[in-house]
Every structure is written in C-alpha cells, then in structure tokens.
C-alpha cells in the first residue's frame, strides 16, 4: 500500500544502470521462490519465480538467481527505469503448502 516500506532498506540507482536486490530466505524445504513488486497504493505484483531445482531463471529485463547453499535469492533488473521504482519482496512457498512467506522488502529508487 501507499505506506509500505517506510523503514525498509533502500537501493538507489541511476536510470539505465543495473539493479541487484538481495534476499535471504529461511526454509530450506521451500519449493518455489517468487519476486514481487509493490507500488504505492497497490498490491504485490508477480515478477518472476524460480523452482528450487534451478539456480537461474531469466525474464524480460529480470533475472533471478538462487543459491540454496546459503539460502540466498537475488533479483537483477537490467537497464533500470523510473517505472521500476517500488518496494520489492521475495517470497518462498514451503513444500506441500500454498502459502507465501514474504521476506523483508527493499525499496528501489531510480533517479535520472
């Protein structure tokens, strides 16, 4: 919503640069990992997901990397644009469940 992310870590990047947002997850039994983007006044929007048996997946301008050894997930955004400004959350889906467990978000600010 409009007030999400008041005390979140912030990543500031210049328009056109690449952005890397990191996330640590907690459950080694999680089967899926998803990145969401949340703009002010809106609900989270699906960006990209990755299954636990993969270590990399690419979408349009985005790449997700998964390191199960250290339980780390990252989202790379190529050629960051002003419209990418938002709060980004990683989420995990524990095996045999349908519930999303969200991590701490990161606010991405893109300046010209």
């Amino acid at each position, binding site marked *: *919503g409009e*007030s*999400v*992310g008041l005390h979140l870590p912030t990543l500031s990047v210049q328009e056109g640069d690449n952005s890397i947002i990191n996330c640590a997850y907690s459950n080694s039994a999680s089967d899926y990992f998803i990145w969401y983007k949340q703009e002010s006044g809106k609900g989270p929007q699906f960006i990209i997901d990755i*299954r636990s048996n993969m270590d990399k997946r690419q979408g349009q301008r985005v790449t997700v990397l998964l390191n199960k050894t250290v339980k780390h997930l990252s989202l790379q955004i190529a050629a960051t644009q002003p419209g990418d400004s938002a709060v980004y959350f990683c989420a995990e889906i524990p095996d045999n469940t349908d*519930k999303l467990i*969200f991590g701490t978000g990161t606010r991405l600010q893109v300046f010209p």
Partner: protein
Amino acid sequence: DAGVTQSPTHLIKTRGQQVTLRCSPKSGHDTVSWYQQALGQGPQFIFQYYEEEERQRGNFPDRFSGHQFPNYSSELNVNALLLGDSALYLCASSQSGQGIPYEQYFGPGTRLTVT
C-alpha cells in the same frame, strides 16, 4: 477482465469492534488467500479458502475468521479489534491445480485503521 477487487478501500474502526472485509477473485480463479501487511513489513499469510472451506491457516488468533461463497468471493472477519490489527489487508486469488509456475494475483488491499 477484472482483476482481484477488494472493498472497502479504507476503514476506520474502534478497539473492540468487529470488521468485515470483502474480496472478489480474478475471473477463473477459485482459491482466495488473505494476508496482513503491517507498516514497513512484508505481507503475512492469514488463511486460504478453497471450495468454501479454510484449507490452510497462518499464525493468527481465532479472532480472524473467513468465509468463501459459491461464487468464490470471500470475506475476512476480525472480531474484538486491537490497535495492532491496523494494517493493509490483502486478498490474493489463484486457480487450484494450475501448472507450474505457481502464481497468486493480489488485490489493492483494504487499509484498516483501529483507534
């Protein structure tokens, strides 16, 4: 094709009161999940409804209850409101049995303020 809709957009209640929030899922979706998002935090799973029954539940007290109707829409009820219940309540819908990858579509949320 309408996405997930929620009502009301904003709500102000007093401690001890009860509140009902509503959600209509995306067309073609039959599963509804509810999340609570406190200020500055990620959403937390409350529960999920499928075939008009609660299928999964997060770590929320019994004051939080829900319902799903035959048309797949859903309500979230919170009794005996506490100040700490102030948050953005998000509804997400999905289609059961859908193939990989799994995806939930979120509504814009209802901002609840308890005074």
